[in-house]
C-alpha cells in the first residue's frame, strides 16, 4: 500500500513539474529579456516606442519604423489572407458537407502550406514572388494609380507589399484551419432552422452559421495576426530592410523581427540592449495577441467541441 501511494505521488510530481516547466519558461523568457534590455529601457523610456531614429553611431535608438513595418505588413497579410481563409473554411465546412472525403483532402492540402518552412517561403519569395509581383502587379498599379500615395514611387519588389503578400500566404493555413473547425462545430439545427424558413445556402451561412461561430472565427483571425507579427525569415528576405515610415507600399521597410535577425549578431552594449528591447516588444505583443485569441477560442469551445 505504501509503495503504491509513492508511485502515484512520484508520477504526480513528475508530470506537474513538466507542466510547471512551461510556465517557468515563459517567466524566464520575460525576466532574461528584461534583464538585458534594461539599459535601453532606462535610457530611452517610453520614447523608445515613438523614436524614429535608429543611429548606431550616435547611440540613438527608436523602434517606430520597425513597429510601423510590422503593423503595415501584418495589415496587408490580414486584409488579403482573412477573406481567403474564411472562403476556404466555408467551402470545406458548408459546400462540401456531403463530400466528407473531398473536404478532408482539401483541408489536408491547405494544411500542408503550414508545413512549408518559412525560409523556403523566403527563398521562393526572393526569386519567384518578388519579380512576379513587381512586374505584374506593382508596376501596373504604379503606372495607372500612381497618383495615390499607396502606389507611388518606383517599385523594386523588395517592399512592404511583397512582405505583406508572403505573410498572407503563410497565415492562410492557420486561419482557415481554425475557422474550419469552428464552422464544423456549429450545430446542424442552426442550419436546418434557417433552411426551413426558405433561406438560400448563402443566407444560411451568413445569417445563421457565421454569427454563431463569430468568436471562434475572430480567435483564428487573431491567431493569424500573431503569426504575421512574429514571422521572421520570409519577411527579412523580401522587405528590403530599410527603416522607413511612409504610406507608399512599394518602398522598402523593416520589421521588428527582421531587425533582430539582421542586426543582433553584430550588436554590443546599448545597441544590443535596444535590440533585446525590440524583442521584448515583440514578446509582449505576441503574449497579448495569443492570450486574446486563446481566450476567445476557449470561450467558444465551452459547450462545443473545438480543437485548435
Amino acid at each position, binding site marked *: 500500500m505504501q509503495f503504491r501511494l509513492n*508511485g*502515484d505521488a*512520484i*508520477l504526480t510530481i*513528475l*508530470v*506537474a*513539474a*513538466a*507542466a*510547471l*516547466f*512551461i*510556465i517557468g519558461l*515563459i517567466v*524566464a*523568457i520575460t525576466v*532574461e*529579456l528584461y534583464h538585458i534590455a534594461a539599459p535601453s529601457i532606462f535610457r530611452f523610456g517610453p520614447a523608445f516606442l515613438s523614436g524614429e531614429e535608429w543611429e548606431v553611431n550616435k547611440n540613438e535608438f527608436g523602434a517606430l519604423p520597425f513597429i510601423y513595418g510590422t503593423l503595415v505588413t501584418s495589415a496587408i497579410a490580414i486584409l488579403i489572407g482573412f*477573406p*481567403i481563409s474564411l*472562403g*476556404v473554411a466555408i*467551402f470545406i465546412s458548408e459546400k462540401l458537407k456531403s463530400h466528407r472525403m473531398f473536404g478532408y483532402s*482539401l483541408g*489536408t492540402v*491547405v494544411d*500542408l*502550406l503550414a*508545413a*512549408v*518552412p*518559412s*525560409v523556403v*517561403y*523566403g*527563398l*521562393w519569395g*526572393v*526569386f*519567384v514572388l518578388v519579380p512576379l509581383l513587381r512586374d505584374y502587379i506593382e508596376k501596373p498599379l504604379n503606372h495607372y494609380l500612381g497618383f495615390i500615395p499607396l502606389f507611388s514611387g518606383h517599385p523594386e519588389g523588395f517592399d512592404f507589399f511583397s512582405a505583406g503578400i508572403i505573410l498572407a500566404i503563410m497565415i492562410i493555413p492557420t486561419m482557415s484551419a481554425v475557422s474550419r473547425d469552428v464552422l464544423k462545430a456549429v450545430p446542424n439545427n442552426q442550419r436546418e432552422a434557417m433552411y426551413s424558413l426558405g433561406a*438560400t445556402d*448563402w*443566407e444560411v451561412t451568413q445569417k445563421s452559421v457565421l454569427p454563431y461561430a463569430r468568436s471562434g472565427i475572430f480567435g483564428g483571425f487573431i*491567431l493569424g495576426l500573431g*503569426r504575421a*507579427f*512574429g*514571422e521572421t525569415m520570409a519577411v527579412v*528576405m523580401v522587405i528590403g530592410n530599410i527603416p522607413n515610415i511612409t504610406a507608399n507600399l512599394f518602398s522598402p521597410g523593416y520589421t521588428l523581427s527582421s531587425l533582430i*535577425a539582421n542586426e*543582433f*549578431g553584430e550588436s554590443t552594449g546599448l545597441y544590443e540592449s535596444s535590440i*533585446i528591447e525590440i*524583442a521584448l516588444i*515583440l*514578446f509582449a505583443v505576441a*503574449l497579448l495577441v*495569443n492570450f486574446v485569441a*486563446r481566450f476567445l477560442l476557449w470561450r467558444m469551445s465551452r459547450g462545443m467541441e473545438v480543437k485548435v
Partner: protein
Amino acid sequence: MTKSNLSANVSLQRKIVNVLMTILVLVAVVLALVPLILILGDVFVKGAPAMSLDFLINRPTAPNLPGGGIAPAIEGSFVMVGLATLISIPIGVGAGIFFSEWSTSKLSTVSGFMNDVLTGFPTMVIGLFVFILIVLTTKTYSAFAGGVALSFIMTPIIARTTSESLKLVPTTLREASMALGIPRWKTILRIVLGTGKNGLLTGILLAIARASGETAPLLFTAATSTLFIKNLMQPTASITILIYYYALSSVPSWISQAWGAALLLIIIMLSLNLFVKLVIGRSLTEARME
C-alpha cells in the same frame, strides 16, 4: 406590380447573391491553392538539378567550384533536431499527461493555457532567450544551444497533442483498470498512454517536422559552419540557415544549392506530414469513431 411579381424579384436577387457568394468562395479556394502549387512546383523544378550524391555527402566548396555539398548542414540539422527531440519528449509528454489526467486542477488549466500561448510565440524571441541563457554563458555558438532552442519550440506542440489524444481515451478504460486494483500511476503509464500512443507519435512527428524547418531560433544559437560536427559545443550548420545565407549570397552555384536544400527540406516535411495524416491519422480517426 403584383405581389407575386415582387416576391419573384426579391427571390431572383437572393438567388443571384447566392450564386455570387458561391463563386467568391470558389475563388478563395483557388487563391489559397495557387501559391502552394507554385511553391512546390518551383522547389521541385529548381531544386532537382542541384541534387546529386556530391550534394548530399560533400562539404561546401568555394563559390562556383563544382562538387560542393551540404553534408555538414544535413548532419547539423539531424543532430540538433535529435537533441531537441530527446529533451522535449519527456517534458512534453509529462506536461501532456498532466493537462489531460489532472485536468480538474487549477495548475493544469493555467499551464495548459500558457502552453497554447507558447505554441504561437515568435521563434526569433526563443532564439534570443537561448542566446542569453546558453551562448552568453558558454561563450560559443553551439549545436547544444541550437538543440535547446528547438526543444522549446517542440515541447508545447508535443504537450498539446499528447493531452488531446489522452483525452480521447475512454474514461471506462481508466475505471476498469483502477477497479482491478491497479494503482493510478500504472493505469496512466500502461493503459492510458498505451491506448493513446498513436496520438503521441503524431505529436512527436509533427513537432520534429516543425523543428526541422525552423531557422530563426538557430540564427544566434547554432549560427553556422562549413565543418562537420566534432563536438556539441561548436558552431554548427543546419539546412535552414544554409538556405538563408545561400539565397542572399548572389553566388549562382550557392543559389542553386539553396533550392536543392529547400527540396530536401520539403521532401522531409511532406513525408513526415503525409505519414502522420495518412497512416497514423487514419487509425486515430477510426479510434474516434469506435
